[in-house]
């Protein structure tokens, strides 16, 4: 799928494939192709170096962008899925289990999106239900018992807004996770890989380290939702996206995240393998670093990190970082 803002690139790429498709294989043609390729690459590099927030949203939601299953295959050498919240069901929108990254063993939890409509219906488009958040909490508590770090992959439009979800306590489930994750005595590494949608994202997002892929977004409300409330016009989503400061760069500056994992040129969906490498390297390093901290220090560091956000020093707002 091509994104709207990549139109000019797409045209050049079509030109190139026409040239390549030509039967004659003379030197002139080859050099034309090479030139074009270089041009496309440099255009793409430029385009992606300077994405608007709204363009970033589109990249973050790109249907070919890696989803949790892809990361499990590409980043982790083993994954043993563990099912169920031990009370009601086994949510498909949030999954988890034992996983190995290099030589490090962790408890992996994350939002599960699909790639086809069918898959997406099965996993609810990555929108967690209360049983999903409760399963995640159960697994985090198990990680605590087994002294395993928690790695959390965030990619959700938000917690599922349904009748049953409300009846079974969507609010309670998220609130409980925020409360319990604050005191978890093992390292927690969080990575926003795509959409970091509001409370549904934060519900598994209280980490010692919070990272983002360079074209991921993380927001209190979807740009569309914000536009329709504050602009009274859903089509003003681009304006809202810009105003909300939802890109990795902006969030790093605000101190909300601790690091950015650079995506390959053209976005993670253009080169899964390179994305997995970068993710694997960064998470491994973070785990190695956090492993050296005592349980008490981990809790204290995580607590202070969130205490700093929106802090008022001497009663004046203070951006930390």
């Amino acid at each position, binding site marked *: 799928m091509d994104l709207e803002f990549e139109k000019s690139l797409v045209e050049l790429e079509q030109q190139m494939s026409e040239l390549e498709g030509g039967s004659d294989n003379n030197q002139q043609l080859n050099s034309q192709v090479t030139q074009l390729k270089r041009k496309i690459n440099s255009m793409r590099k430029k385009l992606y170096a300077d994405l608007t927030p709204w363009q970033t949203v589109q990249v973050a939601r790109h249907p070919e962008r890696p989803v949790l299953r892809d990361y499990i295959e590409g980043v982790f050498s083993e994954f043993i899925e563990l099912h169920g919240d031990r009370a009601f069901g086994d949510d498909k929108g949030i999954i988890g289990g034992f996983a190995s990254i290099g030589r490090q063993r962790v408890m992996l939890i994350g939002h599960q999106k699909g790639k086809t409509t069918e898959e997406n219906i099965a996993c609810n488009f990555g929108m967690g239900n209360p049983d999903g958040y409760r399963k995640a909490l159960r697994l985090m508590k198990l990680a605590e018992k087994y002294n395993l770090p928690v790695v959390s992959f965030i990619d959700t439009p938000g*917690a*599922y*807004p*349904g*009748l049953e*979800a*409300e*009846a*079974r*306590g*969507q*609010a*309670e489930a*998220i*609130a*409980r996770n*925020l*409360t*319990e*994750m*604050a*005191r978890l005595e093992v390292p927690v590494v969080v990575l926003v890989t795509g959409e970091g949608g*509001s*409370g549904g994202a*934060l*519900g598994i*997002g*209280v980490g010692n380290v919070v990272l983002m892929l360079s074209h991921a977004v*993380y*927001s*209190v*409300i979807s740009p569309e939702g*914000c536009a329709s*409330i*504050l*602009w*009274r*016009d859903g089509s*003003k989503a681009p*304006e*809202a996206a810009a*105003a*909300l*400061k*939802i890109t990795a760069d902006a*969030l790093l500056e*605000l101190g*909300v995240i601790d690091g950015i994992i650079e995506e390959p040129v053209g976005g993670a969906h253009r080169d899964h393998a390179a994305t997995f490498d970068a993710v694997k390297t960064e998470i491994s390093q973070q785990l190695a670093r956090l492993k050296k901290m005592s349980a008490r220090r981990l809790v204290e560091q*995580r*607590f202070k990190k*969130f*205490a700093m*956000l*929106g*802090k*008022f020093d001497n*009663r004046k*707002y203070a*951006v930390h970082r």
Partner: protein
Amino acid sequence: MGWFTRKKAAVEEKPDLWTVCPACKAHVYKEEWQAALKVCPQCNYHERLACTERLALLADEDSFMEFDADIRPADPLKFSDAKGPYADKAQQTVEKLKLNESILTGGCKMNGRSVVLGIMDFRFLGGSLASGTGEKIFLAADYALRHKLPFIIFSASGGARMHEGILSLMQMAKTCAAIARLNEDGIPYISVMTDPTTGGVSASFAMVGDINIAEPKALIGFAGRRVIEQTIKQKLPDDFQTAEYLQEHGFVDHIVNRAEMKDFLCRVLRYWKEN
């Protein structure tokens, strides 16, 4: 109850002597409405209160000591929307309400017992949770922790404040982290949900009380009714997301009438044995 009596005089000067109950449309004498603490004598609808009104119903006279009154909305994003800069909007709100943030916090006595109180005010940008709100809750919880005092929050909020973006969202984690420390140290934390308690506030500190209390018929829920109806494409039950519905589904311990709230809280707190 000083506040309610003081207010009466002002009311009488106005020409319109009647209040129309927003819930059952009953016409009630304003004086009666005030005397009933803004609760409808017909249908028991509990009207939203300003934080100062609520405080008057809770704190022993002259016992309230406000915390962090000077914390005002920050504008970390330099946010502007169709109506202009958030900073201006916030400033106007502050001036209009003579209130600096969406929550009032402080220490006080309730029937002689020291507690720490947080009272949200829906009039302040829909009682939205923003950096200032979160910080005030955090600092109040910290005070409760250090002084081993029970902490009570009255919620009234539409959710996180969009104008402070992700920093508003982070207040959910920040406030819950503060509550988590109270849990660890065995300090009581009681949540009282008033109309409305929704979105990010319901999904953070409002839902994790040792005891979750609600005022009758208060709207309590995570997602908005319209969003849910659009998602599931069916009509929702009438009592959906009411305090009563929440209690039936296991999330509210007790529904307490406004007039009995102070005594109820005091009765409950007697069950905490300080170590």
